[in-house]
């Protein structure tokens, strides 16, 4: 980030030097733009600046385009990157040069937005910048912007632009930006290539480089502008190859989506399965514990609303577990405790509780809310060209893996787990063996509800927080529990992943709605062969 910033400025300084002659005529328009007598003057000034294409004005234009142009002591300035914890920004000048601003002691100047005067340029005027936006965006310190700019430059035939492009590409540092920059260059060269050999060479280069638009470019070239059929066919051939490669990547993307959906389902089903095993009941309020976890995250975000970056999320992870767990504990103490080994009654009661919880949440929070994605998890990992794996989903997958592992260890490698499993199967006898069934039941409920809360916290990364969010996932997660076989950890995992994958694969063929119907029917058929889930108990214990 820092590097690219520096790089951007160096480039800009270079340009400023190059264009110092043109600067004189531009300064007038800049002044008009910053302090317009009337709207039409401003519009005219922008129009002129666009027509002139003076690199020295690019930073200014860029600031206008980003709606980040401010005035400070009559200097045109803009803000840098993200704000500090106190919502203050670093600043730099945009015209006539791009010097960063310092305070009297020589440290970078930090100001909040309210201390700056916003220069309001109407969208109509901003739209005037569109034609040259790619050009000035080439100098943006933001790689994402540059990528976009490169992409938009392919059509330009202007030699001056080509020169700038070549220049910028030669200094490009960002991997993705470089690729797309190269593509633009190759494309221009391809279009100007005069013989078959060079044309083919450039086609190869484009294909090898394989950036976003490669196949579209090659197809367009092949079906129109190519100078002979040979190269045209060659280009189309290459485009087809790229397409099929792309299709393969798409498959991987689908698998990843399946994995991520599966992890979410597993995370929810995990708690459900534990609690189910204990109370022997369909815990209708499980989805609501998830909702509680999500609202906990939301509340913590509100508390942390000023600064502290991603800390709010890191803190909410354990906290949502604890809060939801505690709610589960209270519920267990007040209601479920009286209902062990009465599955029907607990079904009813948990349904009642879920109604109460949903309406309570609605009264407190009222409406649709959502949690900010922490910075660390925003965006995605470019695993390969055309294959972005969002960080938030990677995080959820990892979280699920960790929780599954911990749950496994807890259940099967500790004394607590042994007691939990004993209590789930035979409360009275466990008590006779010295197991404090009440405490164990409470702990189990705590863990089960806590896991739901954690799932809720994780889901804020991809969805919103609404009072009845629990309902969205609950049927699916019950399906996971059931297809996996009730109370079977391994079954839950396999069926969660299975349902995730199948959903995503069927979604690729059918529309989302039919995809879902298809999955449900598939599960029904599957249960024909495995009426007790993936990993049924064998032998005599299977009978109950």
């Amino acid at each position, binding site marked *: 980030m820092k590097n690219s910033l520096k790089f951007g400025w160096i480039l800009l300084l270079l340009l400023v030097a190059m264009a110092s002659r043109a600067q004189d005529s531009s300064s007038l328009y800049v002044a008009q733009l910053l302090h317009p007598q009337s709207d039409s003057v401003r519009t005219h000034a922008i129009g002129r600046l666009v027509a002139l294409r003076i690199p020295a004005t690019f930073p200014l234009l860029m600031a206008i385009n980003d709606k980040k142009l401010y005035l400070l002591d009559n200097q045109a300035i803009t803000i840098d990157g993200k704000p500090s914890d106190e919502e203050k920004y670093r600043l730099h000048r945009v015209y006539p040069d791009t010097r960063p601003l310092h305070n009297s002691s020589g440290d970078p100047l930090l100001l909040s937005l309210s201390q700056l005067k916003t220069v309001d340029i109407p969208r109509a005027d901003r739209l005037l910048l569109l034609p040259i936006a790619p050009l000035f965006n080439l100098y943006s310190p933001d790689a994402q912007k540059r990528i976009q700019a490169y992409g938009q430059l392919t059509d330009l035939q202007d030699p001056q632009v080509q020169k700038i492009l070549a220049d910028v590409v030669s200094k490009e540092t960002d991997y993705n930006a470089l690729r797309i920059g190269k593509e633009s260059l190759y494309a221009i060269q391809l279009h100007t290539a005069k013989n078959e050999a060079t044309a083919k060479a450039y086609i190869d280069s484009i294909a090898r480089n394989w950036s976003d638009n490669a196949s579209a470019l090659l197809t367009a070239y092949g079906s129109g502008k190519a100078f002979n059929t040979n190269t045209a066919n060659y280009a189309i051939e290459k485009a087809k190859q790229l397409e099929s490669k792309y299709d393969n990547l798409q498959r991987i993307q689908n698998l990843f989506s399946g994995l991520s959906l599966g992890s979410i389902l597993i995370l929810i089903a995990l708690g459900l399965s534990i609690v189910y095993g204990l109370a022997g009941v369909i815990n209708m309020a499980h989805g609501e514990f998830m909702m509680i976890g999500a609202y906990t995250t939301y509340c913590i975000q509100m508390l942390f609303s000023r600064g502290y970056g991603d800390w709010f999320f890191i803190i909410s992870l354990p906290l949502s577990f604890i809060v939801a767990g505690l709610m589960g504990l209270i519920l267990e103490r007040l209601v479920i405790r009286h209902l062990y080994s009465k599955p029907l009654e607990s079904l009813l009661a948990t349904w009642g509780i879920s109604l109460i919880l949903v309406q309570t949440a609605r009264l407190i929070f009222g409406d649709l809310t959502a949690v900010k994605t922490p910075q660390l998890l925003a965006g995605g990992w470019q695993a390969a060209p055309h294959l972005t794996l969002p960080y938030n989903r990677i995080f959820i997958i990892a979280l699920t893996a960790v929780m599954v592992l911990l749950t496994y260890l807890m259940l099967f490698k500790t*004394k607590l787990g*042994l*007691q939990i*499993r*004993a209590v789930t*199967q*035979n409360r*009275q*006898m*466990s*008590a*006779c*063996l*010295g*197991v*404090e*069934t009440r405490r164990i039941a409470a702990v189990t409920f705590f863990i089960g509800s806590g896991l739901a809360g954690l799932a809720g916290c994780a889901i804020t990364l991809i969805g919103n927080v609404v009072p009845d969010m629990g309902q969205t996932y609950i049927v699916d997660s019950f399906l996971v529990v059931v297809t996996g076989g009730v109370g079977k950890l391994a079954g839950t995992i396999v069926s969660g992943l299975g349902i995730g994958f199948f959903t995503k694969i069927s979604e690729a063929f059918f529309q989302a709605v039919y995809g879902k119907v298809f999955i449900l029917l598939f599960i029904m058929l599957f249960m024909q062969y495995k009426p007790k889930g993936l990993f049924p*108990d*064998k*032998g*005599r*214990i299977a009978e*109950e």
Partner: protein
Amino acid sequence: MNHAYTAPILSVNQLVAAYGQSTILRGTTLSMQKGAITTVMGRNGVGKTTLLKTIMGLLPVQEGTITFNNQDITKIPSHKKAKIGIAYVPQGREIIPKLSVYENLQLGLIAHADKNAKLPEEEIYHLFPILKDFRKRAGGNLSGGQQQQLAIARALVSNPTLLLLDEPTEGIQPSIAQEIGSILQKLVKEKGLSVLLVEQKIDFATQVTDHYYFMDRGKMVMDGGAEELNHKALEKYISV
């Protein structure tokens, strides 16, 4: 020492207990000596199992008291009873079906006074060799008799002072039933264990009993020392 000998380890006084509306124990009184095997006998459905369940705390006491080691345990919950040294082998085995044999045994350790106690595997497998081969098998998959053996082993693991046995030989092959008898006597002798045995098979009972009680319709109707326990004397109580 003398004092310990005379004070009963368990005494049940005028116990009344019921399942919902139907009262089963109607003033049961019983007292058993430390280091002895006391047997409760009686026809089907007179409330023997109910008595053990009530002692264990699985059924609330409506009236009367239960004293163990001079401590009133009428009201304390089952798991505490287990922790102070009462172990229970219920009728119907009550093995935790989906836990392996080994895990079932481990559960027995929870009530052990010593938190760090290890499973006395050697001893157990010596008594019940079959359990060794089936260590990893789910308890619920064992045959009836194997489960019974497991239930007894599990109770012994906690190193109890009082053992409640509800028809322990039910479904067990004769040789092992025999063995169980000798083991009980050995434990009583060597470790000072006290045993409250519910048994219907007079053969087995006569062989191990120090003192017997005879129960009918929720009350003790007769008791006496081992020497009095003979077929003739009992016959009139067994038949209506």
